[in-house]
């Protein structure tokens, strides 16, 4: 009985554990970098940004962009496209920070921000979950050797930790 219980408890330490769980849903991946249509997709996204005004609308836009680029980064990492993945991750970070700034602006303008803060926190939790999952499956450092240029060292863990730090302050 004691052996059985010990083995039962041991399985919990061996199986990778996810320390965050969020009901927040990330979007489906769209057109990915490398695809010929990516330029148009990117342009349309930026054009949408021009059409967006107001704190709440800007928050929704920036958060949706952060989600989109996070999903993009995740898929690119899974396909070993580390250079492109890192660029997508940086964009995701940037939009995430902007989205929080929108929440603060909405608060300054006396708008009800409870729902926005809750959504932002849920998104942060989901992003942490995704980034933590990536950290478990990726190498710490990777040297990207392009055909016609000098090799580039990508400190993946450093970048992931920075991305995690940005999200964890809003959880």
């Amino acid at each position, binding site marked *: 009985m004691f052996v059985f219980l010990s083995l039962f408890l041991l399985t919990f330490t061996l199986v990778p554990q996810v320390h965050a769980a969020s009901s927040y849903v990330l979007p489906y991946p769209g057109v990915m970098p490398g695809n010929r249509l990516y330029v148009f997709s990117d342009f349309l996204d930026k054009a949408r940004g021009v059409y967006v*005004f107001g704190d709440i609308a800007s928050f*929704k836009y920036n958060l949706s962009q952060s989600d989109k680029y996070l999903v993009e980064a995740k898929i690119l990492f899974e396909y070993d496209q580390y250079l492109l993945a890192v660029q997508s991750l940086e964009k995701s970070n940037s939009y995430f920070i902007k989205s929080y700034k929108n929440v603060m602006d909405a608060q300054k303008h006396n708008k009800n921000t*409870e729902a926005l803060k809750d959504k932002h926190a849920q998104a942060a939790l989901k992003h942490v979950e995704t980034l933590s999952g990536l950290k478990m499956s990726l190498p710490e450092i990777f040297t990207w050797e392009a055909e016609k240029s000098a090799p580039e060292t990508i400190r993946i863990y450093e970048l992931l930790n920075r991305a995690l730090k940005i999200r964890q302050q809003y959880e």
Partner: protein
Amino acid sequence: MNNVKSIYIILAAYALFTILFSVFSYCFIDPNLIYLKKLYTGLAFTNRVEVSLFYTSFIVVFFGFYLYFLTLVHKKMLTIKLVIVIVSLSLPLLLSYPAMLSYDLFNYQATAKVTYHYAENPYLVMPIEFTNDPMLLFTRAANKYALYGPFWIALTGVPYMVSMANFIIQIFLFKLFVGLFYAGTVFLLYKLSRSFFTVIFFAMNPLVLIETFMSGHNDIVMMFFVLLGYYFMKQGKNILSAVSFVSSIFIKFSTLFLLPVWIYMYYKKVKNQKLDWDRVWVLSLISIGIIFLLSPLREEMYPWYFIWLLPFVALIRRKSISLWAAAFSGGLLMTYVPYMYTGYYITLYKIIAALLFIIIFIFLCKVFKQTI
């Protein structure tokens, strides 16, 4: 002399009627409308039978006046001054409660508030996202993004800003604003036809008056710009015509269906060919009629959508079409009765109510040889 005296008596009766109808509309005040709580009676919810009967009677009397005014047209007893007096006598309807039949005016106000007070994009942010706003107590469909074009959103800035955030003043400013476009539409119809029949058929149609002056729908604004487009085309001002036309599309997208007609007119002008305006009105009626008939696919055939067709019916001036259009207007106004009576939206009852009115109206017009 006797004829003139009787006309003025009828006009006085009509003025009294519009005042009474406006007063009646306040039976329908929403219980959550905090700004008018002192006038709240709840009669529309507690005395459904009586309210439904009164409403039906009002519609029947309204059509009685309508037929009388059309008779004056046929007897050639109208002058421009008299036409202006007749149309002006409908003004008391502007003072009616706006949500007797439809809550759309509150939605226009809510969307304007999202845009101009909260400075948010109404196509990306719904009114319901401002959880503490008192307007949510009585605004229906607050969980929708803006349904209208950006030009309408821009136009609503005028009554919104002028009202200086006073909700009650805002209601009447919105109605007055829409009323100005009604006046413009009536003026354009006269300029396009030079016919008192066209003016009276449209301007005094009870559906037009109720849905414009009472409910404050923006369909009349859209039709104003469409007719302005036709007017400019007739004047040979093609660019202004195009601008007006596009403006109407950016109010409510239905007039996109008139684009083939506009292209036809433009083609004729460019080729220096004579434009048969009767054909243009018929083609326009058919084009806009298609989107009107398809409207149930999107949501529902709302009575105020018939305003899209009525200007062209008025301009065509064919007795059979006018008779059916007048009957259909009444039928559409009767579709409100089942909800008034039961408190439920039952499509079959609406169809029955509409058909009953249409059949009886046409039958009586035929029996009494009433010319439309």
